[in-house]
Structure formats: structure tokens, C-alpha cells
């Protein structure tokens, strides 16, 4: 599904990502972990197109998307969430989803209908996602007025509503309590069941170990380990890099 070849990103003298090779197969939940500053968020920004690459390639379903603009990549099937929530605060929950809804199947509706028409067929789709995210009761609420947990759910919903093939989650569990993390876990599993491929950046080790199929570990922009959760947990290099992260129970 996703392949990174020799991916590099330099900010002046800083090598945020350095010659990264990665393969994510379709339908798996792939975790990307590493200490702070190891380049995880930068990888997400490179894959979704917010930063131009310094070197290397990003391949989606074996097609080179490295030079495509962000919004075009969304049309190709890659969406993402943001670490610090970036919702459209002055728009309602419903509108936040409506705006992001650019699913390929709706394109056949024609330009005028899609842009100048009312909700129409889109309504069912959005309502379904609202239910999935437990936000049905808040559809007309301004996104900026939501509670933190609700905003996180909306952030995820917005990434899902565009019917992506690959979903990039940038620290979705940050700031969540245990109950919310369990719900997030359940949602990710459900998305996987529906056929999505997920690239998960996370610091929360319990979640990562529980929900991912494979993990890669970054440090200083380079991959230092890759494998199943068990393999990675027992890897000495990883333990050294993290220094003091307790092994998941």
C-alpha cells in the first residue's frame, strides 16, 4: 500500500528524516514510534504532502506521489489527523465533515451539484460517520465549542469521511484518559475491519502494542528496528533509545 524509499527531509543542518525505507502492506495497522524529535511527525507530513521531500520517494499502491500536492493525495486516498487538533472551529461539526467529504464516488455527481447543492446524498454518509464517532448529538455544535475528547473524535472522523485507503494518525491518543483510549482502540480495529490501512504515530505504548500488527522504531530520523510488537519490545536498541519506558503489561 505505502512504500517509502530513501526518504529524507533536512531542515537546514537538521536531518529530521534520514534515508528512511519503509513498507506498509494493505489492511495492516502499522505503528511508528520513537523518542521525541525522532522524526515521526515529519514522516507523516512528508507522506501527506505538507512538506516537500529533500530526497527519496513516497509510493502509494506503487505509484509515485512524491511530487503531488496535498489535496491531490487526499483524492488518491491518503488522509491524516493532526497532533494538535486542527479543526475548523467556526464551522459546525457537520460542516467540518461535509467539507472533507470528497469521496471518489461523489465525483460522479457533477461539479455544480457537489459544490452548490445542499447535503443531499452526502447526508447519510456523514450521519453514519457521526454515529461511528459518537458525535450524532453534536452535529450542529460549533467545532470550537466541543470538549477536548469530542474534538479528538471529530478530528478522526474528518480524516475518515473522505473514504481513504491509507489513514495517518498523528498521536491520536495524546491527552486522552483510559476510557477514551479504549474507545480509540475499538475504533481503529473497526476501521481495520472495514479495510483501511493505518499508519499510527503514538507515544502511548499500551495502545501501540495492543492495536498494531507491526511497528517501526525511529531515532534521529533513522529506522533502528522493525517487527511485530513483541519483537520490538525485546529489542535492545529500542530499549536503549527509550531509556526507561516500561514494557507493556
Amino acid at each position, binding site marked *: 500500500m505505502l512504500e517509502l524509499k530513501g526518504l529524507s527531509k533536512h531542515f537546514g543542518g537538521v536531518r529530521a528524516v534520514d534515508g528512511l525505507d519503509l513498507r506498509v502492506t494493505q489492511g495492516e495497522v502499522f505503528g511508528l514510534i520513537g523518542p521525541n524529535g525522532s522524526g515521526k511527525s515529519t514522516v507523516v507530513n512528508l507522506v*501527506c*504532502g*505538507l512538506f516537500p521531500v529533500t530526497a527519496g520517494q513516497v509510493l502509494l499502491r506503487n505509484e509515485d506521489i512524491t511530487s503531488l*500536492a*496535498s*489535496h*491531490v493525495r*487526499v*483524492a488518491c486516498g491518503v*488522509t*491524516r489527523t*493532526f497532533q494538535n487538533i*486542527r*479543526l*475548523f*472551529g*467556526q*464551522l459546525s461539526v457537520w*460542516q*467540518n465533515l*461535509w*467539507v*472533507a467529504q*470528497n469521496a471518489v464516488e461523489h465525483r460522479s455527481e457533477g461539479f455544480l451539484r*457537489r*459544490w*452548490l*447543492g*445542499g447535503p443531499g446524498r*452526502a447526508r447519510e454518509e456523514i450521519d453514519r460517520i457521526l454515529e461511528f464517532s459518537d458525535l*450524532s*448529538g*453534536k*452535529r*450542529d*455544535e*460549533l467545532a470550537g465549542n466541543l470538549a477536548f475528547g469530542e474534538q479528538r473524535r471529530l478530528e478522526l472522523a*474528518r480524516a475518515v469521511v*473522505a473514504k481513504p485507503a491509507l489513514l495517518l494518525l498523528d498521536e491520536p491518543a495524546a491527552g486522552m484518559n483510559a476510557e477514551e483510549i479504549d474507545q480509540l482502540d475499538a475504533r481503529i480495529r473497526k476501521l481495520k475491519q472495514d479495510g483501511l490501512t493505518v499508519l499510527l504515530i503514538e507515544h502511548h505504548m499500551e495502545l501501540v502494542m495492543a492495536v498494531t500488527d507491526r511497528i517501526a522504531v525511529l531515532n534521529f530520523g533513522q529506522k533502528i528496528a522493525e517487527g511485530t510488537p513483541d519483537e520490538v519490545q525485546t529489542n535492545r536498541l529500542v530499549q536503549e533509545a527509550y531509556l526507561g519506558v516500561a514494557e507493556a503489561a
Partner: protein
Amino acid sequence: MDFYLGLAQIVGVHTLLGLSAYCVLLTGQVSLAQAGFFAIGAYVAAMLTVLAGWHILPAIAAASFVAGVVACAVGFPALRVKGLMLVVATLAFGEAVRLFFFNFDYQVARGEVKIGPAGGEGFRQIRFFPEHGWSTLDVLLFIWLFVALVMAALWWMDRSRAGAVLRAVGEDEVAAQSAGINVTAVKVAAMTVGGLIAGLGGGIFAHYTAHIEHAQFGVALATFAIAYPILGGLSSVFGTLIAVIFVQGFLIEGLRFLGDWRNLLFGGLILLAMNVRPRGLIDAATIAGIKRLRIRNREPGNARTQGAE
């Protein structure tokens, strides 16, 4: 009575100007170029009716089109220039347009008289309305027909996906891009639509005022153009309309007994308004409140109402 009709005409034309800025402001671009597009519309329409003998309808249509094309051309380089630099760039563009017309001389002899734009002196004798026997009331209705059309179109756009997309771009371009929106296309489109509306307004303005000159289309007008939507609030087209009524009414009529002090109070009033209601007269919270009131009045005990609470 004629006086109030005249006031209503001014309000109508300025509403068009304000709405052209509204469009562009929604996408987060602060454009001081709307007065420039307005000027282009005015001169083009006037030249078409006076020098080429066109009827006013195709003339303002053409004026609108030309202004739209120019706006589209401005929209692209405007993308390279973000935030407050855009304010300066559009200000400079507007001034450049004004200076162009200041130096623009295109006179044609009709009999013994020379007609046409005459540089610093402006363009006189734009007499389509009187020549065709339009009364003040006729002109007024003509103006407000277009105001109504434009407002209806923008109102519809606001309720459609396009409206939400415009606002999303205005709020957070990065998030919008990542949600699949072609931000470039949206911003240029908004600028173009703004240009079309401003050109329309300018074309109408030239004919009801019968004499246009460069000084009318300067920084002051450009500032008024964005002042209306900002003061009225960007959440609804009606905000702009109310702001125009308030500003023009206030300046010209309302507090007439204050005489010269009106202008003084005007600046002070803007300061007060922005401190007390930074999001404008009609903001998102107001609209949400109005919606809740309407739902509550119509269907008490509706499950939706409880959800919205």
C-alpha cells in the same frame, strides 16, 4: 423624498462593494483591491454606454466580466503573498489602478463636444439614465434588483458546500489542504467572484453618479469595502447589508444634528465596535442563537433542540 431615494441608492451600491469584499474575506484574504475592481467596472461600463452606445445591461455585464478577469489575474500572484503582506499588495494594486485612471485619457469628439475619460478631470456626462428617461425610483429599483440577486446567490452559496469550504480555507489552510481542498483554486475563485461583484457594482455606480474620477476609488473606498463585512460580521451576508445601512445612514443622515462631529464619532464608533464585538455584529454565535430560537418556536420538544443544547 428624493433624498432618501438617493441614500437608498448609495446603500445599494455600497452593499455590492461590501459583498465583493465579503467573498474574499471568507477565505481569509484581506483584500484592499476591491475598490480597484470597482473602478475598473465603473470605467468600462461608462465607456461602453457613452462611447460605444451600448445599453446599460450588457455594459455592466461586460464591466463585471472584465473586472472578474482582472481579479482572477490578481488572485494568482496574491497566493504567493500571505497574510498581512497581501493587505499591502492589494492596497498597492488598488492604488495602481487609481493612478492608471488618473493618467487615462481617451476622448472622442461627438459634434463639437469631447466625451470620455479625461485623466485627472475624470469621466463626465455618463448620462444613460437621464437620456433614457429613468426616474430616480427606476434607478433605485434597478440597483436593488442586482443587490437582491447577488445577496441571494451568496446566501445560497453560504448554505452549500462551497460556503463551508471557503470558510474552512479561511480558518486553517493547512487543515483544509489536508482535508482534500484545493486551496489555491478556492482562493483564486473567491477573488474572481469578488471581482465580478465589484465590477457590477462599479458599473452601476458610474451611471447613477454620472461623473466618475480617480479620487473616488482610493484607499478610503478600499477600506470601506472591507469595513462593511468586518463590522457586520462574516457569518452572514445580512451582516454586510446592516453594516452598510448603519455606516451610510450614520454618516449621511442619522446623526445629522451632530454636524461635523459625525466623522469624529465614526472613527470612535469603529474602535468601540471592534473592542466590544470583535467578530462583528452578526457572528457565528448569534446565528446559532437565532437558529435555536427558530427551532424552539416552531417545534417545542423536538429531539434536535435537545441535541443542540
